[in-house]
């Protein structure tokens, strides 16, 4: 596992003036930022602010129409080889888990390593079982995703992403589709991952998690980064009015 001392000053992700439209709707209106290796960034903001779209542009699930995204020194263009290289370095966890229902949990995890990283099936299974153990659900390996709870499914999805040994993990509202009592088991896994030194970009509404784990919180509104500050400053001394309103609203309930 990478440690914090590996952190260099070369950012692992660089975004320069990213614009994105859905038809005529301007979702991202010029996002410029960068992330360091090992950095844990939480991205929050009201729905429709472009936060999910933003992290989906980083592994090209969404195409940006203007600007520049450089991941690990490789620029994201239409070149399919580059896209697939970057996707192997960037793991992603979805709101709806998106596990493959026709494969067992174990097969969900070994598919990428076997078919993309081209490692032997035996080894992939050993690694997958170790990951499931780390997620505390080793006993669910041979069940199908539909046979386990939402919290367990999301942990399988995290294990599936980690099996590719990514350098960056993207989380797109990983707890939003979960029943309240299952949120903490997923957050625990993410906390453990953060401690291991993984570079993480997390879109979430879990402000407690953000305050505790994040190095940095980015607040999106209407396709722009409105606030970008460490948690202490973000919560206690926000600069922008919109941020203040958002914080007061999310902390109220």
């Amino acid at each position: 596992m990478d440690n914090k001392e590996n952190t260099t000053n070369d950012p692992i992700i660089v975004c320069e003036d990213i614009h994105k439209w859905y038809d005529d709707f301007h979702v991202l209106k010029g996002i410029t930022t960068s992330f360091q290796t090992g950095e844990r960034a939480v991205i929050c903001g009201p729905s429709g602010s472009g936060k999910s779209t933003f992290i989906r542009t980083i592994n090209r699930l969404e195409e940006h129409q203007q600007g520049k995204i450089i991941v690990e020194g490789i620029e994201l263009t239409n070149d399919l080889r580059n896209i697939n290289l970057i996707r192997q370095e960037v793991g992603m966890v979805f709101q709806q888990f998106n596990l493959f229902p026709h494969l067992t949990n174990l097969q969900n995890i070994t598919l990428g390593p076997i078919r993309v990283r081209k490692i032997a099936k035996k080894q992939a299974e050993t690694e997958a079982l170790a990951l499931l153990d780390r997620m505390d659900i080793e006993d669910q390996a041979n069940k199908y995703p539909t046979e386990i709870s939402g919290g367990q499914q999301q942990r399988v999805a995290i294990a599936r992403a980690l099996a590719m040994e990514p350098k960056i993990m993207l989380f797109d509202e990983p707890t939003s589709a979960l029943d309240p009592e299952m949120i903490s088991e997923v957050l625990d896994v993410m906390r453990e991952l953060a401690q291991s030194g993984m570079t993480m970009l997390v879109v979430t509404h879990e402000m407690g998690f953000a305050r505790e784990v994040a190095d940095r919180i980015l607040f999106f509104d209407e396709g722009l980064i409105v606030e970008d500050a460490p948690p202490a400053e973000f919560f206690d001394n926000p600069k922008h009015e919109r941020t203040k309103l958002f914080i007061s609203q999310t902390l109220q309930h």
Partner: protein
Amino acid sequence: MATEEKAQSHKPPRNVHSPQEWLRQNLFNTWYNVILSLLSIGFILFISKGILTWAFTEAKWSVIPANLQLILIGSYPRDQIWRIWTVIYLLSVLLGMSAGIWHGIVRRFAIILACVWLICAIIPFQLATRGLFLGIVVSIAISYLIASNKISWHRWIVIGWLLSFPMTMIVLRGFGENAVLTSNWGGLLLTLILAIVGICASFPLGVFLALCRQSKLPAIRWISTTYIETIRGVPLITILFMGSVLIPIFMPEMNIDQVVRMMIGITFFSAAYMAENVRGGLQAIPRGQTEAAHALGLNYPKTMLFIVLPQALRSVIPAIVGQFISLFKDTSLVSIIGLIDLLGVAKSITANREWLGLQAEVYLFAAVIYFVFSYSMSYVSTEVEASLGVGNT
């Protein structure tokens, strides 16, 4: 909910009725239902009496055994029948071995087929024929035992099945002086060959067309859509006529076998329908599935092969098998082009002066054969669906 007493779980109320009760509740519960039931029963009795009287007293079933060979293999030279037996034996060995390796539905299928052969062996044919039937059962059993649990052989068995088709064609046709030209292939043999070729070729072609129709590239999408809509707009018989009449006119230098032309026509026709069935399955796969696959770094072909197609095809098995069944029955149209398939043989038997006026018996027998094969496909499809049901959403 923390109550003092634990909520007791009860069994659901049982709704079992005696037959009399059932009849009274469902068929004779009101005066108009009584009338409807009596009328229906009278009608059923009337019809079945007519059919049974005909089948057991008037029908001259002797036409079937007298022409059985003709119905099964048409005018295939009688001294070359060993070729057909060879093919049956080869396929039986393959099936037996597959059953030994995969168990499950393959084994059940092999057992059912072995039972059918066993029944054939009991029917009083010539002694040699019955011996050969029994031999098939024995060879299925032996190859099952040999391959039993030898999982490492499965790759060879798959290759064997892939090779079985060209092998069948070569063995059936043969070379040199003794070659059996396709014009001599007939009866059930021809029907089965046309259907199997049509099914095996139109399935991958249909999947390919469905994927093309979903392509991001407009040119590919457009070509595929045009193909599908054109073919679906034309009756199969027209396509078969084109294959039979137009190809020799347009390409006189290309001397393509008549049977092969029919195979191509049937395949191209069925592939268009197959493509639409598969497309239905593809559309039902949520976008999150491809996104998750892409996020893992799987490229387009791998995403399709490992994620999308397995789910899409599973969900459209009923539609696909329906297409197979209709293809199987549609092969009877080649009799209009002049090929002597199962239906063609039936037609020619009834035209024979010796068997004049026995259409009912002959066509009924042909219908039963069509039904047995169609229903078998339907049965296998429900079995396959059930066995793939695990982990289905």
